[in-house]
C-alpha cells in the first residue's frame, strides 16, 4: 500500500494510524497548540485552540479531525491566528492570572500560549473567573477553580485512566466548575492523591502541595540532622528539569546535589526496596505454603493502598503488610540515629506519599518515620534555588552503611519492577541466563496489564502486573468473576509505574519510555542483581532491626483486619 500523506502548511506529512491531524502535525514537527488534548485520554475538542483551516477556508479542530490521504490544512493563516488570539483572550477573561506567584508559573501552558501567540493586552477587562472555593483538603494536591479553564483533562484522567471519577464538570454555563459532587472536598471522594490530574492540568488549577519552605527551614537549622532518602525513579525524572536526556539515570549527580544543598546524610531508597523484596517474598511464600487466600497484592504504592481502602476494602487482607520502601527506610533511619535530632526526608516521584507519610500507622516508638516528602519536581526547584549547576556536577556515592543496593531495588521504579525483583529473589539465582529468562518472561514493558506464568522449582506461579488504577480494577473484576486466577498481583496507581508518578516532571509517553530505558540502565550498572546479595542486609537485620523486623517493617492498616 502506498504511503499515506497529508499536506500541512504546504509540507507533505506522512502518516499511518495517528488518531487525529494534531498527532500527525506534531509528529512532523508542526506544533499546533492545544489545551484539552492528551494522547492517553479520549478526545474532547473543547478548548478550540487547535483549529486549523482547510482549502475552502473552513476551520475545524485538529484534535477531532481524522487524517486522510491528500487532506490539506493550514495551521497559521490569518483566520487561524485571529481565532487563537480570541480564544486565548476569552480563556484569560475567566482565569485568575496571578502568574508571578502561581506555582505553575513557567510551565503553565496557558501562560506559554498567551506569550507565544502574542496576547499582550487583555481585551476583556472584567474577569469572570470561578469564585468556587479552594480545596486544600488533600495532603497531596490543591484544587483552585479560579484558575481552571474547564479543559476537562483532569476529569478524563480520573475517570478513564484511574476509574475513580473524584471530580467532574458540575453546574452549567458561566457557573460551571470542575469539582467533586455535592460540594464535597477531595478527601471525601475516592481520590487517592495520585496527582495524575495535576500532571495533565495545563494551568495552576490543580497543583501539588508545595513543601519546599519546610525543607529550607530544616536545611538551615544547625541543630537538625537532615537525612534524605531518594526513590528509584527520582534518578530518571530529575534530568529533564536540567535539559538532560531522560534516558540516562543521574544518580551520582543527585547525591552530590543533595550534599550541596546541605543534607547531612544521603541514602538511596533502593536499599529498602531490596529489603521490601526480602520481606514480601517471605510473606508470599508463607501464604502459598499456608494455603492462604491468593492473589497477594503488592503494597509499595500508597495510591493503590488508598484505592483498596476506599473502593475494595474487602481485598485489604490480601494486600501485603510490608511497608513501602520509603516506610522501611524511615524505620531504619530512626534505628540508625536513635538519639539524634533527625529530620527524615523522602524524595519521591509521588504525591500520594505525602499522604502516606502522615498516616498514623507510620509512627514507631513514638516517632514519625518520615517527617517530610518532597516530589522529584520540588527537589528540582530546590536545586535551582541553590544555584547548583546540576548538569556539570561530579558524581558521589550515598552514605554508608546504608548505601548499598542491588539492581532488584532500582527496577521498583517501573511497572513490573517489584514483580521482577520478587522473581529474582524467589528463583535465587544470579546467573546471567536466569536473569535473562526472568527479563523475558513477560514481566517487562509498559503495557497497562501483563499476565504471565513463572516456574519456581515445582511451583507454577500465575502473576499479573497492572499500572493505572483503571487497569487494576479490570484485573480485580476478572479475578473476582473467576475468569482469571493469579497468585501474585502487582499494582502501581500511576500509568507506567513510579517513573510516571504524579510527582515527576509531567512527561509524554515517549519521554516515559526513555525513563523506562534509564531504569534498566541503572539496573545494568549494578554488579549485584538479586536482593539477597545486598551486603548491607546483614547489618540491617542484625544491628538495626535486632529481631524487630516484623514490627518495624510491616504496616497493618485498619482494613487489613487481624492477622
Amino acid at each position, binding site marked *: 500500500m502506498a504511503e499515506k500523506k497529508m499536506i500541512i502548511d504546504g509540507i507533505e506529512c506522512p502518516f499511518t494510524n495517528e488518531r487525529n491531524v494534531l498527532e500527525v502535525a506534531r509528529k512532523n514537527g508542526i506544533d499546533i497548540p492545544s489545551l484539552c488534548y492528551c494522547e492517553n485520554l479520549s478526545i474532547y475538542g473543547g478548548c478550540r485552540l487547535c483549529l486549523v483551516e482547510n482549502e475552502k477556508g473552513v476551520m475545524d479542530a485538529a484534535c477531532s479531525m481524522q487524517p486522510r490521504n491528500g487532506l490539506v490544512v493550514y495551521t497559521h493563516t490569518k483566520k487561524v491566528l485571529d481565532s487563537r488570539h480570541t480564544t486565548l483572550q476569552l480563556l484569560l477573561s475567566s482565569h485568575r492570572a496571578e502568574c508571578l506567584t502561581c506555582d505553575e508559573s513557567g510551565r503553565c501552558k496557558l501562560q506559554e500560549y498567551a506569550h507565544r501567540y502574542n496576547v499582550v493586552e487583555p481585551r476583556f477587562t472584567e474577569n469572570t473567573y470561578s469564585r468556587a472555593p479552594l480545596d486544600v483538603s488533600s495532603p497531596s494536591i490543591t484544587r483552585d477553580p479560579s484558575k481552571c479553564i474547564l479543559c476537562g483533562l483532569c476529569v478524563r484522567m480520573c*475517570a478513564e485512566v484511574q476509574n*475513580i*471519577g*473524584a*471530580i*467532574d*464538570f*458540575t*453546574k*452549567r454555563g458561566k457557573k460551571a466548575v470542575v*469539582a*467533586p*459532587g*455535592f460540594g*464535597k472536598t477531595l478527601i471525601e*471522594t*475516592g481520590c487517592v492523591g495520585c496527582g495524575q490530574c495535576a500532571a495533565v492540568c495545563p494551568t495552576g488549577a490543580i497543583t501539588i502541595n508545595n513543601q519546599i519552605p519546610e525543607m529550607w527551614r530544616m536545611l538551615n537549622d544547625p541543630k537538625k540532622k537532615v537525612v534524605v532518602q531518594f526513590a528509584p525513579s527520582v534518578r530518571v525524572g530529575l534530568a529533564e528539569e536540567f535539559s538532560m536526556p531522560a534516558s540516562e539515570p543521574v544518580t551520582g549527580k543527585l547525591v552530590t546535589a543533595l550534599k550541596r544543598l546541605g543534607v547531612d546524610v544521603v541514602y538511596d531508597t533502593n536499599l529498602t526496596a531490596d529489603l521490601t523484596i526480602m520481606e514480601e517474598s517471605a510473606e508470599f511464600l508463607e501464604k502459598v505454603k499456608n494455603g492462604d487466600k491468593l492473589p497477594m497484592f503488592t503494597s509499595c504504592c500508597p495510591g493503590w493502598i488508598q484505592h483498596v481502602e476506599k473502593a475494595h476494602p474487602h481485598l485489604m487482607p490480601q494486600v501485603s503488610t510490608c511497608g513501602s520502601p520509603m516506610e522501611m527506610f524511615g524505620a531504619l533511619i530512626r534505628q540508625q540515629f536513635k538519639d539524634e535530632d533527625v529530620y527524615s526526608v523522602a524524595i519521591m516521584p509521588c504525591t500520594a506519599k505525602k499522604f502516606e507519610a502522615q498516616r498514623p500507622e507510620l509512627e514507631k516508638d513514638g516517632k514519625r518515620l518520615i517527617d517530610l516528602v518532597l516530589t522529584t519536581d520540588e527537589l528540582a526547584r530546590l536545586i535551582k534555588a541553590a544555584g547548583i549547576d546540576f548538569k556539570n556536577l561530579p558524581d558521589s556515592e550515598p552514605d554508608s552503611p546504608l548505601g548499598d543496593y542491588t539492581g532488584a531495588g532500582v527496577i521498583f521504579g517501573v511497572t513490573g519492577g517489584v514483580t521482577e525483583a520478587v522473581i529474582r529473589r524467589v528463583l535465587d539465582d544470579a546467573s546471567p541466563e536466569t536473569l535473562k529468562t526472568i527479563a523475558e518472561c513477560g514481566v517487562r514493558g509498559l503495557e497497562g496489564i501483563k499476565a504471565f506464568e513463572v516456574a519456581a522449582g515445582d511451583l507454577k506461579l500465575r502473576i499479573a502486573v497492572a499500572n493505572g488504577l483503571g487497569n487494576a480494577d479490570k484485573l480485580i473484576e476478572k479475578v473476582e468473576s473467576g475468569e482469571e486466577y493469579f497468585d501474585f498481583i502487582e499494582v502501581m496507581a500511576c500509568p507506567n509505574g513510579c517513573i510516571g508518578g504524579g510527582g515527576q516532571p509531567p512527561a509524554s509517553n515517549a519521554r516515559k519510555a526513555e525513563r523506562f530505558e534509564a531504569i534498566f540502565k541503572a539496573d545494568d550498572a549494578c554488579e549485584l542483581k538479586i536482593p539477597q546479595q545486598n551486603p548491607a542486609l546483614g547489618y540491617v537485620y542484625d544491628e538495626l532491626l535486632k529481631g524487630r523486623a516484623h514490627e518495624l517493617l510491616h504496616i497493618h492498616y485498619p482494613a487489613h483486619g487481624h492477622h
Partner: protein
Amino acid sequence: MENMDLRFIDSVLEKHDSDKSKIIAIMQDVQEQYRYLPQEALEYIAEKVGMSESKLYGVATFYGNFSLDAKGKYVMKVCRGTACHVRKSSNVLQALYDATGTSEQKPNSDDGLFTLEIVSCLGACGLSPVVMVNDTVHAAMTPEKARALVEQLKEEA
C-alpha cells in the same frame, strides 16, 4: 434527609433496570416523589448504577429542572417573559416575595410552604401575567390577587 426510605429509590431503579443511560428518567422519578433530589438518594443511585458521584451530580446540576434543594409544598413559577413583563409581572413577583417572606436570594419560605421560581416563559402569554402554582395556572395576576392567593394557600395547607 436522615434515614430516607431507600425502598422507593430501589423501585425506581428497578423500573429503569439500574441502567445508567436512563439516569435522567431515574432522577425525574425521584424528583417527582420528593419535589427535589435528596443527596442521599443520589449517592445511593450513583453506587447502584455504577456511576461516579461527581458525574451524577454533574448531570443533576446541568439541568435547570432538577433541584438539589428541598422545595416548599407550593412551587410558584412566576413568569418574567416579555408579555408578562409588559403587563407588570415584576409587581406580582414582588408581592409574592413580600407575602411569602422570600426573595431572589432566598427562594424558600421559612414555613416550608413556598418556593418561588422565576421562569422565562410559560407559553401562556395571552393569560399574562401568569403564575403557576404546582400544576395550576393562575392568569391575569395582580399584586392583590397574588396576596390573596398566598393567604388562600396558607389556609389550605
